């Protein structure tokens, strides 16, 4: 049970952090090459998924 609570706390903490996320500054973005951008895009996709799950859960 403790593990469950801890996991839930971590998940909530994670969601809070996503709300206050710090994006890569514009000037850094310009300097990134294709692969770096692809990696970054993947992180953003991941965040979108997490937020979507949160949305779906709240919606239900």
């Amino acid at each position: 049970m403790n593990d469950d609570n801890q996991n839930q706390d971590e998940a909530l903490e994670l969601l809070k952090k996503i709300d206050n996320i710090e994006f890569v500054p514009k000037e850094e973005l310009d300097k990134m090459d294709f692969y770096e951008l692809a990696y970054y895009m993947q992180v953003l996709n991941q965040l979108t998924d997490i937020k979507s799950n949160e949305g779906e859960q709240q919606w239900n």
Partner: protein
Amino acid sequence: MELALENPQVAMPKITNEKKEVVKKLKEKLEQAKLNLIYVELEELGINVEKNYTSVAELDKDLKKTCAEVDYNKVTGIIEKVNNQLESVVNSLEQGSTNAFTKLMTSDLAKSIGKTLGFTLAARTALVLAPTATSKAVVASGLGVYSLYKIIKNRKEIQNVNEDNELNNILTELETTKDNDAILDTRFDEETQKEIREFLNKYDISFEDTGYRSLRQAIYTLEPEKKKMLVNALNSKLGRGIDVDERVKKARKKLNVVASTAATVGVGAKLGMDVASAVNGVDPGLVSGLINGSVLGAWVQNQAGKPWFSALSGGLGFAGTEVLERLPVIGNFAHTLFAGENIAALAAIGATGGLVTSAVLGVASGVKQIVKSNKAKKETDKFLKLDAEKYKEEDEKELLLIKEKLKESDNTIELVIIDIIVNYLRDKNIVINPVPKSVEELKTSIEKLSDEEKKEAKIILTRIEDSLNNDTFKDKLLKAGKISIGLFTAGLSLMSVYDIIKGGVFLPELSKQLFPENNIYNPVPIPDGPDVPLTPDNSAEYSNANNLMEEFKNNDNYYHEYTGSNYLMDTAQDVANEAGRKEGEGFFSWLFRQIGLSFRLNGAADFAFADNLVDKAAEGVGIDIVNSLTPDRVAITNALNSLSPDKLLLFMRYMNTNTATDGMTTTIREMLQQEAFVGKVTDYINNFTKIQANHEFINDITRKFATGLIPASVFYTMIEKAQKNTTDEKYTINENEITDEKESDSLSM
């Protein structure tokens, strides 16, 4: 995703806008990325072009004019391949990560996953095959201890790698002469080289001195303590003012993070089991999903929103990403991943939560690390390129000399065996440096060890020494060793795969045959019921016992309504019809479809088994009763009393469902309601339930644990692979160097 966008509470315009911006930039850079990949491929074909094109079409047009037809056909293939790869990467990124699986399974990464999966499946086989709860515990603890050993070993290796890497970085800096950002030279001058040779000589470090490359090899492979001494001496001689201690200290600081991360990976095994249990709790049908899904990521996508999803992404994700993000290995790991076609593999890692920690750590800093490591890689590339160009002639001479020397010694197999010994000793914390080049050298090195270390060394040396004197034996040993390890692991893995496809019935059956005594998969023994005394009663009269049997047969639900066997046959037929690989169906889609079918078949088999058991027992009850019935109450009582508890239970059930109202049936029904019979059956049910529950529990836990190992160990291996990349340092110059046999060792859990 749409739901989230429509709901203002969870809207995420910030991320969506950022994604639009990144996709725009990705598309801007796409053409150049394609060109870069095409240049590399063309170079491999021996076709050199100016690297100043701005579009693939333009390059294609020029190559069409200049290349011979046969070459141009290859060029067209390359262009098409790169176009497709990168276009699909961008598309998959733009649409989210759902297409990542196919990419993942065709990438290099899949190879390491496949390898882990092989070993994990082998471990699963061992665990399921173990016949008793105790032996299962022994196997499980064996696996646990082995995993722990790997974790501890890893921690040590990471520590060494970290410190060693930093010293290597400083050595490279010392080797490099720069004017602002431009690299002027990549090697130590003659005088410094002489001093390095003196240093090595002073510490009895011998190496095959064929020139600068061999010297470089010798100093980069020094043990950390000596390397640090040399680095300090060179730093002071060259007046570079590098704070070596501080740099190494900083590298050590990273170790704490690494250590806790390595421990977290250990938690992965527990987590794997938790996840497996959680999945079973939510929906037992998803167990197959766990097996494929954890590896594929796609399943997690499908299951997004389930309560345990956050636990999965928070846990496994942490274990995976913490290492990927924070360790110095990221450069190498990213390098592998960033090889164009592998980029989409990130999507799959991300799907299992691997990238979640980027968010926890702060996206910007995570990405900055990647950028930084890429810059470091570019710097190294520049160094190596200049080094190869500037000293081309010198290198060619040296390589010839190296080849000559190797030809002279021709001790390839000896070197392999020495390598095994040295690695064995390294595992025991006994470092032999430099690596000996002959058994004689090895013996000399061993003589310098402490008594206790010598003892350890001699154990392995004695075992191998004899075989070194026999060439045929050596060859056979090497071949047989490699093949048998491969076959053994492959065999066990295939057994597990077969077991999974068979819905988990194959290995228990095999276990029963291999270990027939006290096997946990044997039917639960039925407890003996108490001896029930009965009061004889001769008052009732009965006739026509055969009628009872007929009635029993005609009305018995167990015979006619529970059509488990038919159901199993129908299902088996369906499964057989679906077993083939359909046209155009990929191997993995086929495999996972089969796993789904096998679960269906397993369900039907369970049902039929239970049904069949009831059938047989009912038949037995019927015959016993009919054969023993005589028209008096004593005989009936004796017959009932002679039934084993399970048959009595079955018979009671039968009588409860039997609607006949003739005198005999009614009397039997009344007699069965006597306390003695009810008590006997109740005791039986209680005991049986208790034993069965324990039995099921152990089997269930075994399966969950074994299945849970799979996702945990996949992550573990990815991390190991990353570390291995780090140890496969970029300064390996001896092209004839023997590749080690660590691969099988890198399989974990």
